[in-house]
């Protein structure tokens, strides 16, 4: 048993009985929540991917027709991805989506470099979401 696993509540022998019981219950609750979230991710992954596709479509529209409503649509999709990905254990996904949101909300017109960066961010998000689906990935 390494140092990290020794700190798991279920292993504490120095606690009073009531505290030990509470600690075990807390560990059980955490495991249960972890399992429920894993199930929920599998159920909701499609909706998360739909949101990514909205972002990708808005970036494509930017490439073809310049600034317009698609920036607001893309920023909204990126904002929602930023909010949910970290909650499902993908903090880097939140960082990537947040960068996309900030870029799309810039007051100045987007440059070619901005659009290239947005394409990169969307690609990375796609890879992250796909990897999160692998067994054991978190």
């Amino acid at each position: 048993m390494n140092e990290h696993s020794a700190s798991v509540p279920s292993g504490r022998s120095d606690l009073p009985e009531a505290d030990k019981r509470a600690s075990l219950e807390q560990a059980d609750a955490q495991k249960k929540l972890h399992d429920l979230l894993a199930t929920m991710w599998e159920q909701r992954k499609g909706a998360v991917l739909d949101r990514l596709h909205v972002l990708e479509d808005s970036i494509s529209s930017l490439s073809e027709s310049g600034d317009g409503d698609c920036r607001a649509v893309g920023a909204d999709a990126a904002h929602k991805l930023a909010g949910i990905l970290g909650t499902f254990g993908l903090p880097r996904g939140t960082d990537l989506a947040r960068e996309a949101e900030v870029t799309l909300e810039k007051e100045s017109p987007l440059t070619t470099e901005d659009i290239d960066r947005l394409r990169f961010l969307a690609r990375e998000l796609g890879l992250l979401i796909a990897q999160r689906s692998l067994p054991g990935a978190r």
Partner: protein
Amino acid sequence: MSRRILIIDDEDDIRQVAALSLETIAGWDVVLANSGKAGVEAATREQPDAILLDVMMPEMDGPSTFLKLQATPQTSKIPVLLLTAKVQGSDQRRFAGLGVSGILFKPFDPLLLSKQVSEVLGWKD
């Protein structure tokens, strides 16, 4: 001590994860609303101990919903925590200026959400 929390968020995923978190880890009762209007109605009806309120929602956003809650005698005393993915300082100052009880940031850690709520509201149990 059992608490009743109202979560107002238009995002289904956020509502469900937050509810699972608060129910599973803290054993609290959770009431859900998917819009500001539905949230004000639920708050009036359910009288929760606290409200988690999303900022960006269509039609009636979080700040507008908070003002409505404040203006409604049955809900004006219920503590409200804003839940936001906006991290820019100007946004945070604007939200804090509303007079809410606190601000929690998305993404939240589902394992820690109830602890964060308790800490912000000064709940000891």
